[in-house]
């Protein structure tokens, strides 16, 4: 560097460079940066480096600072850093809370930056990514009615129809803003050791006397296994960043872009033949024998499903994969868990996936092997009825093409809400061994023949039950449905993949309704 220029404060270009570089390198101060580093955590600029293609970050709002005169020098960026960059060559917009500036708290100017960048992302049609760990609204800035009312509650992020993918990572203690935006996001990943909540334990204790740790309140275990308010958990920040990149690799950049279609990843004829053989033998002959739905889905599709909310509603797998290179949303039964029965969380995550797929015109594949909905007081009191009918409404309102394969069991309303008969499917096929009906014959026999069974002497009661169930099971074969054209075809299990590949390749050039005519782009994210 030319030292003569540095020495000359009159040179506006050099002064600008010095100031810019200082803001970007010192951030909220070396002490704060060291503190983060000691905690084994990255600062927001290091996170951008991991997330974005090298050298692609173009910052917006470097010189922003608090509008409180007393804080202007101590608040470089005003707690939020952001700009535009590339991920795998595709344009994205990124913002993040800067922990080193007043704990990444939200004040007027920083929040304007988030909004400004969201407008630019929406205009350009590129995904918006928020790396969140805000401590909440900043005090005292927002205590009075002036500051408070100027700190808008992110109206633009809640506006429907959604036009661009919105992605959140929770990478530290998140209260207020970054938590709110995560709930408005299409995808949320949370890193182990962080906390996602509306209100911090400290405020909770002062307000109510309740004492609770960060982990108990909003740790990854709480959200990944209980609330379902995150889509994935990550062990490290790097893993969280990778999850974002993977998620975005499945999604178009905006509602105005077509679905992502890679070159077909289908293997050669020999590989496809081997695959079809494995699909045909993946499902055990005994209807009581479970199998791993993830493995079956990975055989039928090009690759393993990138799961959304894998640890709740575990009787159902929801996520993204590819079929003949095209991104597809996947809803597949998981007989290993709850025999593949649907519960409240299964309905919620399926609804979420349908919403994303309809908004971004991504076709869907449903794979059915479900005994129905979970029954009992617990699920009924946890709003099973409303969750199921929410899924119902999302399904029948969506216009993206949806294909279904009935593998084995397909009982009750669970069959319908998993894109079953007369629910608007683009293709509905069944394996020859499929059982389709109102309820599992083993249960049905008990209900219909309860008096006969009760009158039967104990030694022969089981045999009679099996006989009655078998008689009912006969009528659940798919030929009844195929005979009345309520399913399109009965297929050889070995041709499952080729039937779906053929259909999706025909759909690739279909006429796609304009974004406004995709009803679920108006659907709430939560």
């Amino acid at each position, binding site marked *: 560097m030319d030292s003569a220029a540095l020495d000359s404060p009159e040179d506006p270009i050099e002064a600008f460079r010095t100031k810019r570089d200082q803001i970007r390198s010192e951030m909220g101060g070396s002490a704060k940066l060291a503190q983060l580093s000691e905690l084994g955590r990255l600062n927001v600029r290091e996170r951008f480096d991991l997330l974005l293609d090298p050298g692609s970050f173009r910052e917006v709002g470097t010189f922003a600072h608090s509008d409180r005169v007393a804080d202007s020098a101590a608040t470089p960026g005003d707690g939020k850093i952001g700009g535009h960059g590339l991920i795998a060559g595709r344009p994205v917009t990124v913002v993040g809370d800067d922990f080193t500036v007043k704990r990444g708290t939200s004040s007027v100017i920083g929040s304007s930056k988030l909004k400004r960048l969201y407008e630019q992302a929406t205009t350009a049609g590129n995904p918006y990514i928020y790396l969140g760990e805000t401590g909440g609204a900043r005090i005292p800035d927002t205590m009075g009615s002036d500051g408070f009312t100027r700190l808008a509650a992110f109206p633009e992020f809640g506006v429907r129809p959604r036009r661009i993918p919105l992605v959140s990572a929770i990478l530290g203690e998140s209260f207020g803003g970054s938590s709110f935006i995560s709930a408005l996001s299409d995808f949320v990943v949370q890193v182990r050791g962080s906390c996602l909540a509306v209100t911090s334990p400290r405020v909770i204790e002062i307000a109510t006397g309740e004492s609770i740790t960060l982990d108990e309140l909003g740790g990854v275990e709480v959200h990944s296994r209980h609330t379902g308010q995150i889509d994935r958990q990550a062990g490290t920040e790097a893993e969280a960043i990778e999850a974002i990149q993977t998620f975005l690799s499945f999604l178009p950049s905006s509602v105005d872009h077509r679905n992502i279609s890679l070159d077909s990843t289908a293997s050669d004829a020999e590989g496809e033949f081997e695959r079809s053989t494995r699909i045909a033998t993946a499902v055990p002959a005994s209807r*009581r024998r*479970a199998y791993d739905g993830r493995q079956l889905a990975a055989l039928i599709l090009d690759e393993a499903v990138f799961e959304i909310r894998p640890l709740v509603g*575990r009787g159902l797998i929801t996520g993204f994969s590819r079929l003949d290179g095209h991104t597809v949303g996947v809803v597949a039964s998981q*007989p*290993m868990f*709850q*025999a593949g*029965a649907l519960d409240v969380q299964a309905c919620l995550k399926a609804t979420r996936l349908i919403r994303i797929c309809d908004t971004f015109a991504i076709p869907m594949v449903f794979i059915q092997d479900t005994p129905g909905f979970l029954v009992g007081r617990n699920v009924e009191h946890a709003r099973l009825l409303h969750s199921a009918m929410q899924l119902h409404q999302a399904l029948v309102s969506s216009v993206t093409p949806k294909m279904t394969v009935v593998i084995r069991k397909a009982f009750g309303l669970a069959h319908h809400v998993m894109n079953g008969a007369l629910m608007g499917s683009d293709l509905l096929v069944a394996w020859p061994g499929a059982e389709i009906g109102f309820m599992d014959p083993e249960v049905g026999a008990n209900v219909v023949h309860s008096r006969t069974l009760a009158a039967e002497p104990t030694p022969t009661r089981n045999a009679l039950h099996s006989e009655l169930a078998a008689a009912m099971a006969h009528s659940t074969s798919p030929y009844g449905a195929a005979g009345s054209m309520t399913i399109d075809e009965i297929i050889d299990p070995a041709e499952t993949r080729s039937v779906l590949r053929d259909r999706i390749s025909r759909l690739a050039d279909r006429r796609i309704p304009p974004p406004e005519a995709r009803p679920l782009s108006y659907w709430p994210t939560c």
Partner: protein
Amino acid sequence: MSNSVSVTAEMSAAVWKIEIAVGSIVAEGDVLLLLESMKMEIPVEAPSAGVVAKVCVTPEQSVQEGDVLVVIDVSA
């Protein structure tokens, strides 16, 4: 034990049938035991080839998610 893999339960269930014993040689994907939950038999498969070093459960025992079921020595 130099190189072993613990096979854990993915869900709460009852142990139904054990298909191997200590010393059994298993290939990847072999069924080690069957769990029972919601009237379904759930096969637990060997994640990799090896020799069964330890069977930690007995039939009818109930297990929780994360419990170790079988330990396989994969050092060979």
